């Protein structure tokens, strides 16, 4: 249990992780992440990379939707922009992959800011629907532009580092996980400063935010741009991971997936984006496992897997919204509170 914390400086009080316990837990987690690739099989490495990519994208969406209150159903399409940027740069220019990833982020940020323009005039659901419109238009571009390979899409070579091809999950893990970790840290930092506070102010009460000297449009667009930057980098990582980008890689349902991830995880908390994305990525796998157990007894169980996945996906969204709108992060917080007071109060 924790009795109290005493700090002797403002810097100490402003730190992201302000207790010893938190810091040691974090160090432990970092250690686990570093050891993981050496003990896990290819399947778990594959899943870890996928979770990390989804966490990066969900964290981006959380900045926009969870923290700034602007609902977007365009996250998957934005990832597509990032993925195509990386693929095109790899195929046509041949720049090294860190440059490509940054370029993917930058391009997507620009596209995101443009898509955010309607937020000047509309908000709430209207904005969400405008982002659906933007995704449809982006999909059309992906499927019909010669540069993006039209319906065929693009296949690209693996990322190269010091002359090695990074084409196995084990190698990519060392790229994807650290980048995701850095992006999470960046998001956490963002909300220690005036930029992040301005986003929250806009979400909570946009009109009084203006009186505090926060220009709404500029910050809404900034939020769109940052969130899209995250999506773009995540899309770039995705492209290096799968090495093929097609118009069908980023359907609207994926945007809904990311929104669902932050709802399930907890909107407006960094932890929420992480937990939600990891949870939602793993649920279908667990389902598959469960269905696998049943398949010896019900030969048709496999065929039912897809519908069951679809139902569970919907049920998770509905269930969390009705019963635990603060998401997994809140459940986690409750657990923590319990242990802070334990054993004096249960």
């Amino acid at each position, binding site marked *: 249990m924790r009795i109290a914390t005493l700090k002797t400086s403002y810097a100490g009080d402003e730190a992201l992780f302000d207790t010893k316990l938190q810091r040691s837990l974090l160090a432990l987690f970092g250690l686990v992440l570093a050891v993981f690739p050496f003990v896990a099989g290819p399947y778990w490495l*594959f899943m870890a990379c996928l979770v990390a990519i989804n966490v990066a994208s969900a964290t981006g969406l959380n900045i926009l939707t969870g923290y700034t209150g602007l609902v977007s159903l365009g996250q998957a399409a934005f990832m597509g922009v990032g993925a195509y940027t990386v693929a095109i740069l790899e195929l046509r220019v041949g720049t090294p992959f860190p440059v490509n990833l940054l370029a993917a982020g930058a391009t997507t940020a620009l596209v995101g800011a443009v898509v955010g323009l309607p937020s000047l005039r509309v908000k709430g659901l209207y904005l969400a629907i405008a982002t659906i419109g933007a995704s449809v238009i982006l999909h059309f571009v992906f499927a019909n532009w010669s540069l993006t390979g039209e319906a065929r899409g693009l296949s690209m070579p693996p990322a190269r580092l010091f002359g090695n091809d990074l084409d196995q999950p084990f190698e990519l893990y060392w790229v994807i996980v650290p980048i995701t970790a850095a992006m999470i840290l960046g998001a956490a930092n963002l909300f220690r400063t005036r930029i992040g506070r301005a986003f929250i102010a806009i979400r909570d009460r946009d009109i009084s935010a203006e009186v505090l000297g926060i220009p709404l449009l500029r910050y809404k667009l900034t939020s769109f741009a940052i969130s899209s930057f995250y999506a773009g980098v995540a899309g770039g990582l995705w492209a290096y991971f799968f090495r*093929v980008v097609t118009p069908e890689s980023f359907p609207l349902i994926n945007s809904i997936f990311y929104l669902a991830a932050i709802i399930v995880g907890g909107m407006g908390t960094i932890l929420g984006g992480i937990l939600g994305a990891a949870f939602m990525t793993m649920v279908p796998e667990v389902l598959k496992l469960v269905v696998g157990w049943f398949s010896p007894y019900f030969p048709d169980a496999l065929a039912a*897997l897809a519908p069951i996945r679809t139902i569970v996906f919907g049920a998770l969204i509905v269930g969390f919204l009705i019963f635990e709108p603060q998401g997994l992060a809140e459940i986690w917080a409750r657990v923590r509170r319990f242990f802070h007071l334990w054993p004096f109060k249960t």
Partner: protein
Amino acid sequence: MSECWTRRGLIGLAAATSFALVQGAQAQAQDDIVLGASVPITGVFAFAGVGIHAGIQDYLKIVNDAGGVKGRKIKYVAEDTAYKVDASVAAFNKITSQEKVSLYYGDSTGFSKTINPELERRGTILMAGASFASELNDPKKYPFQFMSGPDYTEMFGILMRYIAKEKPGARIAFVYSDTEFGRDPIEPGTKLAKELGLNVVERIVTPPTSVDVSTEVLKLRRANPDYTIFHGYVLAPIPEFITQAKQMNLRSQFMGTFWSMDNSMVQRMGEAADGFMGVMPYRYYYEKDANAPMLDKIRQMRPEYQSNAYMQGFVTAMLMVEAVKRTLEAGKELNGTNLKASLNTIKDYDTGGIFGVPISIPGNSVPVGRIYRFDAKAKQMVPASDWIRL
């Protein structure tokens, strides 16, 4: 583009992760030969995937029950992909990292193209799949792949050869879906039509999940073709197209390519099915008059109707196993180059009557097929031409 709302197979990401769906035999002997597969058990192409999956399994069972190939069993390891390229790639990565794979079945054109560099890099695998894309029919660019039938352009060729014989100089129209699958044979098909002296009067593209095709039918009527070839669909919106066109007194003959030729699917077209024609490289499950011992065997194993996808999976496995057999018999190592070379030695090979004629595989495809026509009374597709070899 409306793919973007596909809820099924949900989760590109999660589908991307489709794993551990189907594991073959649990215990593995050291010298098992592994056939890996990315199959769409779920998703928009599940209809085909389920059939393919069963077909491959059945053929391998026949082979393994008979003692395998030179004493070695063939192990089947498949993963569900929900017909998503990324999921197929993931499945490939997973299976190849856990097994020593010599044969692989891929589920889509996108996957076949995507995985090709990896196949070349490994050089250990012979691959075939559900795609009959024209582009894949190039042994130079796709040295380790083949398709167990004619490619889409060849299918168009078979159809148009038939048309040119029936009605020289006929006006034809292409109706295709706005997908990679749909777009594949349109350009080369148009060129081929010109060579055969046929007149392509209209090319109509429909969104993949289009519900209402009224305007497209109007376009078709204005073009007034003698023959209309559908490509890139399994069922919808073909029936509605035909029904409306017939109501408008359009006297066009409607035709389809392999994936819209399954008998159960055509039956679902209802009245529109009557007279529907198309190209098919295999015999149908129910063809009893033919000299086809393998069909008898299939009917024994599965008393109920099996789709053309089943036949495709079955015969693909057969050709793969044949390539393995010839490689092993020649005492060569099982790798991509040798497997493909063995495959290409197949000449006048009898598939037990699944292909209607003995086949040869000089390149990446098996360019034979026959025109079938739906007989509403018999509720069956019945042959309308001889086997056509290109």
